[in-house]
């Protein structure tokens, strides 16, 4: 949240992004019936350092061998990309082929050669792949960034998308969910929801900020 109001070191932002992604991964692996690997992801989240993108890629290689992307994650839960455009939904949008990322607007990120990682699968597998690759790239970026500070204020690219005071990405994606879940088998619906990385606490905080502003 500090990054919304003041410049912060890019290295810190990117390390936090990778750690957040790994914490999501831990929950997601438990939901897919891999609790031990979920614990490993959590250990990784606590132990990773800038420049260790290779550790995450090696872990992803291990995940591939579990058959996760072949027979576990469903190929359903696709959004109409047109409805996602401009909503700033981070990995969800980038997994649907939209190169939306607040970091592109930041000259410091551009100086580092940053470019969003984009997929076009637009399903839970695509969202997993985007998140995991972004986590690995975040650690590489953190190592390159040195003492560079973020310069864009008032909005930040959180692990779930564009975050602004009183406006969270979870809040923006929630109205779109019923359409993609309709008719799915329960397990597929849960896997789809997990792939969206909803943060209801973040949504509640945004709502509270708006209420305070309105009251003031």
């Amino acid at each position, binding site marked *: 949240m500090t990054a919304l109001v003041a410049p912060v070191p890019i290295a810190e932002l990117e390390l936090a992004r990778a750690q957040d992604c790994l914490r999501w991964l831990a929950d997601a692996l438990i939901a897919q*019936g891999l609790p031990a690997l979920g614990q490993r992801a959590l250990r990784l989240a606590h132990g990773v350092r800038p420049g260790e993108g290779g550790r995450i890629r090696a872990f992803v290689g291990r995940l591939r061998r579990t058959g996760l992307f072949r027979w576990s994650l469903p190929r359903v839960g696709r959004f109409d990309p047109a409805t996602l455009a401009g909503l700033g939904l981070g990995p969800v949008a980038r997994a649907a082929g939209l190169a939306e990322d607040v970091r592109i607007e930041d000259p410091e990120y551009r100086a580092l050669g940053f470019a969003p990682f984009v997929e076009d699968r637009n399903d839970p597998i695509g969202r997993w792949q985007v998140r995991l690759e972004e986590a690995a790239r975040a650690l590489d970026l953190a190592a390159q960034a040195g003492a560079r500070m973020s310069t864009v204020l008032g909005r930040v690219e959180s692990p779930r998308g564009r975050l602004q005071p009183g406006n969270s990405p979870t809040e923006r994606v929630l109205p779109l969910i019923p359409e993609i879940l309709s008719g799915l*088998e329960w397990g597929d619906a849960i896997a789809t929801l997990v792939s969206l990385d909803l943060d209801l606490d973040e949504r509640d905080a945004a709502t509270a900020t708006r209420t305070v502003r309105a009251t003031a």
Partner: protein
Amino acid sequence: VNAYAPVEIALVAVALTLLLGVCVVAIADRLVGEAIAGGGWRVREALVAPGRTAALLLSQGRTTTERPDAAGWALAPALLMGLAAFALAFVPLAPGLVVADADTGFVAFSAAIAFVMIAVFLHGWSPNSPFALHGAYRYGAEALSFQIPFLLAMLATALPAESLSIVRIVEAQEPLWNVVRQPLGLPLYLVVGLGVSFWGPLNLPDAADLDGGTSVEDAGPARLLWGAARSAMLVAVAAMGAAGFLGGWYGPVVPGPVWMLLKTLVLLALLVVAGHNLARVRIESFVIVCWVVLIPLALLNVFVSGAFLL
């Protein structure tokens, strides 16, 4: 029937085997899980933790739901445990060392496997809870799909023996184990064996996406008993795999029963490791794979085994 052990000896033998098997599964599951989680091979912790968990569950009270079928809920874990015990009773440890050496041992074992669906469905239906019932229906929806290849893979082992007695099936492997004679058999048996004992990638009725499925409402001793019954079923599947495919008690140097135990432990370890290393499959994909791939392969295995006997 060739021979039955006296009732007292039979009960003690099966109870001891199950107790030992359940402990081995709990310890192996903990040991492998911790190693995969990155905590290393913590043998001491793995030996102690299952006992600690059991003590904790025994000290907890039961929970209840609104208008459950209390009798069915209490009966389901006992039924599953009973089926595992019944199945194990027909698996020989060595010549003459079997609780029930029946000419129809294969049929009895298969019947126990088929009745697992009743236990799982009862366990999911009786708490009167949506997630538990969903888990029960999941098992019902997939059971036929994996039980057919499971039984076909086992049936092929009866062909060289020309008998449905499990003791005869083992004896027929003295010159050549079925794992060599029927290379498709054991892999098929183990894959669908995970489904029968709803373990690891095929734990669909008790899956995390249903918050525990049929056992979501279980607490305390009931949860412990259900977990133990699931492990017992895994032990029964591994023991039958050792007898049906790995030559049972045949092996050099050490006595036959030791070989049988070692082979069962190896299969148990394989199943436990698979449970931690393979992601849960989607029920739709699994059912399709069963009918399109596993059942034809199991039939091919039966036909090829039969052809070698002509």
